[in-house]
């Protein structure tokens, strides 16, 4: 099996265990192309600085790093899209895509 396929299997396993869907935290992705909002799965990841509330909680941290399998989402998230995590609205400021079809979304809470 190719390396990328192995990583894909690992990603799926990680998302199934640690993803927001497994935690029952709704992640509503709203792309800027007006194709409509959709629920996606992803893993809340450590940001540069931890904050005093839990990422994805109702109060929400200001900065959230969110790992997704970007090839499983259509349209693919890009800068300028929105994501609502457990009712808290975030702007997607940056999308870092790796070689194994994963991506880290850098998000900042909307005032």
């Amino acid at each position, binding site marked *: 099996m190719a390396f990328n396929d192995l990583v894909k299997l690992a990603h799926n396993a990680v998302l199934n265990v640690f993803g927001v869907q497994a935690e029952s935290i709704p992640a509503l992705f709203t792309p800027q192309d007006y194709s409509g909002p959709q629920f996606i799965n992803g893993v809340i990841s450590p940001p*540069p600085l931890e*904050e005093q509330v839990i990422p994805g909680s109702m109060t929400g941290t200001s900065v959230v790093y969110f790992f997704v399998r970007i090839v499983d989402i259509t349209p693919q998230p890009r800068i300028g899209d929105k994501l609502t995590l457990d009712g808290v609205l975030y702007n997607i*400021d940056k999308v870092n895509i790796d070689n194994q079809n994963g991506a880290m979304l*850098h998000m900042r809470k*909307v*005032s």
Partner: protein
Amino acid sequence: MLKPSLVVNAVITTLQTIQPFVAAMNGAQNIKAHSFVNGQVVPIMTDIYEMTSPSCLVVYEGTLGGNFDGMTMWKHHLTVYLKAPNQATVQAPLGYEDLVWLVVNGAVNGTQLNIRQISVIPEVTLVDTPTITRLTDETRTDFFKIDMVFPEIGDN
């Protein structure tokens, strides 16, 4: 020496009267101060990092002391930090080029004057010419700060 918190509060109140700036910040409640109260607020570095989009944070940086001239002993240094709105959630958002212009040139208090042309409170004179700097936070997001120095009149 004048209480620096009075200058901080006056700057916030004045900025909240710049209508286009308030609109760009999505409301006056997003123009606020950092207060150095241990146990009540997070450290300033964290507070800047946690600024939501858009928002404005006014911070007391310190006071310069000296015999600047016959009537000036204290200069209060404040910084206005800006995090811009994002086009994801705002139609036609303003960039930092326009936001900093609104702060230093926007009409305040319903007049035709800007913040550099008024005394924000009677105990300080006109602000020294501000300095505007680009910075980058821990998420590699660009943001700007505007340094403002307010000379105090006499010794209050």
